[in-house]
């Protein structure tokens, strides 16, 4: 274990992939970067076209389209992963050959590739899970909406400028609004209004920030901004860094701005909750990981205490919030918040400290992100399955006798979340702790250990109240009975995700190596700028004005 964790950080020479390497079969052209955006779009549009009437036969058709699109998406994501992580490169696509600050830039490095791959995996697992659990009411156009959501998420991971990041945020939000209220039950409408308003406010702040940045710095391209921002007045830089921090921490569900999450995540169908828990807040975390080291490296250092405080408070509030609520999915929603704090802790540790701890902190954060996306989706799926099988979200007890297979899977997932060996959660937390000790941040290390303990307590509480004990004999509703017949369909995707999590825990060496490659690429600002290579002037104007 110790050998695997001692990772040397090397700063790569960045190479923009712009031609097909014939020697390497798997290496792909940068044009493929458009794939993760266009493939789900086509799948979603076709899905809406083939199913105009929500007739029973149309849902399988939409599902087949979704599976096809997501598999293609996964292949492209894996190819990008191969090019960026395994070959240590960056991929840049200048749309329509417009030079960087003028055109739309799509950019992928190791972090984007990891996120794209995980998004495809989580979405595929969700489609499988939906097969077993969705009834017709919630199944109405679920699959096209899922693809629209994946389109927005993928786009946010690939966006090379701030405005496109905003646009893709809106795309994924729009899809998530509809998914959240799909079914139109009273509780969903209630939760939906809160979710929409609070997310919209964050979007307004984001757009205002983009406007201020364009008005003052004169560009929105991330690489161009990275070149120009250090020359901007410090007060302006500080304002922009603060506004972006507010925006992204609201999207990610960080401490003062998390309240939209627990008031809405338990209302939709469990499939939707699992998807949201796996994907949505992570887009905010990704944006923080991307924007801060690139645009505000000085503030990352100067605000390290602030970021670490936010991380600590997020962890603590999330885990204590989980103790105050009593239905399965609400408890798990609060744990989403608490876990997000750990990833921000990785970002905070990326800031200061010795050189070795810098890269390693972010690498540990990225590893945590990988672990969390998989385990949280699995856990929310398992919680949702328990809720659907018993017909209520309340913790009644006795599920271990009624649903032994589900209980085993839930047990494994819960312990991975709490961070017990040999799960991926253990390695993720160990990595963060080691880098916190390396950076001399004893406070945050202590808080994260305590929160781990409370997470374990909360999981034990769920187990005792929900799974152990005497079974309560509810009269199952007709749909719950139907679900029990299809229960293997429900359990297989959860089991697959948990196998993946255990695999990451047992063979953590390669995954940690990939995370550190990604972290090194994220921290290498010069490499990013060189890869995108924004020009400061139009050649034509330059020539004429120099006369």
């Amino acid at each position, binding site marked *: 274990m110790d050998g695997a964790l001692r990772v040397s950080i090397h700063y790569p020479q960045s190479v923009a992939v712009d031609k097909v390497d014939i020697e390497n079969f798997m290496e792909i052209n940068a044009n493929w970067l458009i794939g993760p955006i266009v493939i789900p779009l086509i799948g979603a549009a076709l899905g809406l076209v083939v199913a105009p009437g929500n007739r029973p036969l149309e849902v399988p058709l939409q599902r087949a389209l979704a599976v096809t699109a997501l598999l293609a998406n996964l292949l492209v994501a894996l190819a990008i992963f191969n090019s960026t992580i395994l070959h240590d490169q960056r991929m840049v696509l200048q749309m329509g050959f417009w030079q960087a600050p003028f055109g739309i830039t799509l950019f992928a490095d190791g972090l984007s590739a990891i996120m794209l791959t995980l998004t495809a995996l989580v979405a595929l697992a969700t489609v499988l899970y939906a097969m077993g659990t969705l*009834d*017709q*009411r919630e199944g109405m156009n679920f699959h096209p909406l899922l693809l629209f959501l994946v389109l927005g998420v993928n786009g946010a991971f690939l966006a090379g400028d701030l*405005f496109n990041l905003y*646009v893709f945020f*809106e795309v994924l939000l*729009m899809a998530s*609004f*509809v998914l959240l*209220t799909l*079914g*139109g*039950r*009273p*509780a969903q*409408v*209630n939760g*939906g*209004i*809160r979710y*929409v*308003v609070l997310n*919209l*406010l964050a979007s*307004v702040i984001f*757009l*205002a920030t*983009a*406007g*201020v940045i*364009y*008005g003052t710095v004169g560009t929105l391209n991330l690489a161009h901004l990275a070149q120009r921002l250090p020359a901007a007045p410090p007060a302006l830089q500080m304002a922009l860094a603060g506004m972006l921090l507010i925006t992204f921490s609201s999207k990610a569900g960080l401490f003062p701005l998390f309240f939209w999450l627990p008031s809405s995540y338990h209302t939709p169908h469990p499939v939707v909750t699992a998807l949201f828990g796996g994907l949505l807040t992570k887009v905010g975390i990704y944006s923080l990981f991307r924007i801060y080291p690139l645009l505000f490296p000085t503030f990352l250092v100067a605000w390290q205490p602030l970021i670490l405080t936010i991380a600590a408070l997020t962890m603590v509030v999330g885990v204590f919030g989980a103790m105050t609520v009593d239905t399965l999915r609400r408890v798990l929603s609060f744990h989403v918040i608490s876990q997000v704090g750990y990833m921000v802790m990785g970002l905070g540790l990326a800031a200061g400290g010795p050189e070795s701890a810098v890269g390693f902190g972010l690498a540990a954060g990225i590893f945590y992100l990988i672990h969390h996306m998989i385990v949280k989706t699995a856990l929310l799926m398992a919680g949702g399955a328990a809720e659907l099988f018993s*017909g*209520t979200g309340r913790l009644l007890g006795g599920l271990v006798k009624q649903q032994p297979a589900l209980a085993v899977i839930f047990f494994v997932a819960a312990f991975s979340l709490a961070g017990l060996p040999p799960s991926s959660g253990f390695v993720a937390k160990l990595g963060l702790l080691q880098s916190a000790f390396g950076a001399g941040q004893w406070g945050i290390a202590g808080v994260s250990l305590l929160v781990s303990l409370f997470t374990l307590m909360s999981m034990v509480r769920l187990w005792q109240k929900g799974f152990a004990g005497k079974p309560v004999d509810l009269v199952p*509703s*007709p*749909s*719950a009975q139907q679900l029990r017949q299809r229960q293997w369909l429900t359990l297989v995707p959860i089991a697959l995700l948990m196998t993946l999590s255990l695999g990451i825990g047992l063979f953590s060496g390669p995954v940690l190596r990939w995370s550190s490659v990604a972290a090194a690429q994220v921290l290498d600002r010069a490499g990013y700028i060189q890869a995108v290579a924004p020009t400061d002037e139009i050649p*034509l*104007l330059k020539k*004429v*004005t120099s*006369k």
Partner: protein
Amino acid sequence: MIGLVLALLVAVLFGTGVYLILQRSPVRLILGLGLLSHAVNLLLFGTGALKRGIPPIVLDKAAFSGDIRPFVDPLPQALILTAIVISFGITAFMIALANRRNNLLLQTTLQPERADDPFALTKPQPQPALDDDYEWLEDVRNSG
């Protein structure tokens, strides 16, 4: 001068929008969100030069002097157009959501989760029969 007027307008719109969002009524909520997005659109508009100029298109390269001062930056307007489309879609969705809420209120009573739920209009009442416009689907569960 025109810049100051625009800045004041943006400030007033932001203030009004925030005030409306803090109200209870869903209609005011929607209006407030609309005003906020207009405020941001005007803010974006202000980042371009507020002047009468010519479109930044060079028709004759040979005759072009290289003086870019008469041109107007077209990018803010492209950004605003995108933002308008997005806020239009979201407003439409919000109206649909509010309409759905009203329909539910007419038929049943929204069951608040907490006693101080700001979106609940009345006290918690016994669970009414689920009767909404999804009833044509066979599989409507009673779990609410």
